[in-house]
């Protein structure tokens, strides 16, 4: 079994591509980067891989134990079954879609995933802004079905790493649109910009990892329009402090559970982010509904009232 991760090999490429994008930003769009934000994002990436190293062994041990209860068996030489690899990749991507959807809709999972969204910038360094608390949030349970189906845990880890590597390049404003057929099937910078946006109409959309088809299939797809995109989270952090960025939502949960009346305590853990028992905060559904009430359904294609446009991507229609 390989004891390395493909991600280790990708890191030098990540660094080189961030550098190239910085040069692009320097020439075309200096506001795409903010040095303090970049440092926080990159430190997130480093801390996340350290956390993964600490907890990876436990996840692997659990998976190997569960593997004995598998439904199907690819045989002792499971790695020789060539079609199992692409099949595993596609099914893992489907699993990722549901993990990601839950990560946005259940506050417990969000507390970990919010790390990835806490930057107000959208560039390749944002891609490396990965959670430190994924294990604590029990994110790995979303991969258990695949193990029980009969895919070897090592295979799942391997294709999962490639999925993560795929998602790196789509975190950029330097690419407008890919060719039509590509945009139709694959997750792209355009689709994922929508996912990172806090514009009401874009909230909780485009959960895809590699294939955007899952969003089209399950009704969570949103096309990027022409309005200026704002990135980050509904309640922006307003600080570059790394540790606050890592733990703020966990602290928020703890405070809410502590203060809430007994019968509402659990709701602060499993209900959507922004839910309160007294309606004092907004969930993404409430924000979207209020926005649609004011602007009408027709505005979803970006035909809303013009806002000061400092986003050169908006309005770019033809494929890049």
């Amino acid at each position, binding site marked *: 079994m390989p004891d390395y991760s493909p991600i280790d090999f990708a890191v030098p490429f990540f660094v080189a591509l961030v550098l190239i994008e910085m040069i692009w930003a320097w020439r075309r769009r200096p506001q795409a980067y903010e040095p303090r934000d970049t440092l926080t994002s*990159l430190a997130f990436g480093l801390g996340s891989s350290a956390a993964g190293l600490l907890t990876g062994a436990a996840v692997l041990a659990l998976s190997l134990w569960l593997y004995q209860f598998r439904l199907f068996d690819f045989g002792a030489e499971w790695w020789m079954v060539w079609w199992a690899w692409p099949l595993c990749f596609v099914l893992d991507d489907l699993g990722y879609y549901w993990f990601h959807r839950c990560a946005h809709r259940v506050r417990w999972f969000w507390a970990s995933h919010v790390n990835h969204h806490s930057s107000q910038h959208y560039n390749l360094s944002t891609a490396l802004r990965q959670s430190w608390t994924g294990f604590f949030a029990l994110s790995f349970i979303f991969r258990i079905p695949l193990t029980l189906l009969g895919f070897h845990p090592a295979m799942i880890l391997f294709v999962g790493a490639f999925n993560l590597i795929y998602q790196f390049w789509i975190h950029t404003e330097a690419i407008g649109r890919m060719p039509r057929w590509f945009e139709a099937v694959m997750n792209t910078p355009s689709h994922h910009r929508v996912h990172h946006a806090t514009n009401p109409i874009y909230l909780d959309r485009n959960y895809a990892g590699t294939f955007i088809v899952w969003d089209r299939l399950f009704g969570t797809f949103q096309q990027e329009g022409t309005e200026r995109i704002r990135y980050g989270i509904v309640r922006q952090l307003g600080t570059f402090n790394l540790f606050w960025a890592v733990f703020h939502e966990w602290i928020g949960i703890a405070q809410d559970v502590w203060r809430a009346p007994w019968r509402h305590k659990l709701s602060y853990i499993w209900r959507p982010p922004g839910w309160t028992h007294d309606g004092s905060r907004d969930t993404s559904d409430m924000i979207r509904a209020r926005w649609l009430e004011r602007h009408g359904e027709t505005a979803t294609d970006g035909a809303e009232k013009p806002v000061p446009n400092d986003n050169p991507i908006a309005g770019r229609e033809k494929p890049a």
Partner: protein
Amino acid sequence: MAFLGQFLASLAAILVLAWIARRMGLGRDIRIRDEQHAQMLADEVICGFEAREIALDRSGRAALLRDHAGRVILVKVHGAQFAGRLLGPGSSATIWEDFGQRSLEADSGERLFGRALLDVDNPENWVSAINGAKVSSHA
């Protein structure tokens, strides 16, 4: 120990990248342009927020907005972007006097979100809007 070596190499790479970003002068010096801009930023804090009264800092680094219900939003420049907060029970406002120059300090009450210093007309109104009448001064 291979891990430690890898960790330190990555840490070095991170610091170098951030340093390069700084040397390249990436980021931008942004300001809140006008009241309309401030209103737009407040709408990002609370969707549908309609300001009845706006105090824009003369240098455009921060703004306070109040709606019909008396809710007050503080918007400030944060790096190359903006960030805002609905002020609550933990928030406070103070007027500072320095060589005859009066400025308003709005404290979000959140340690890491911090506070903003605003050079605005009639800061008293905002002090009372944010925390009742609580004026202090220093020379």
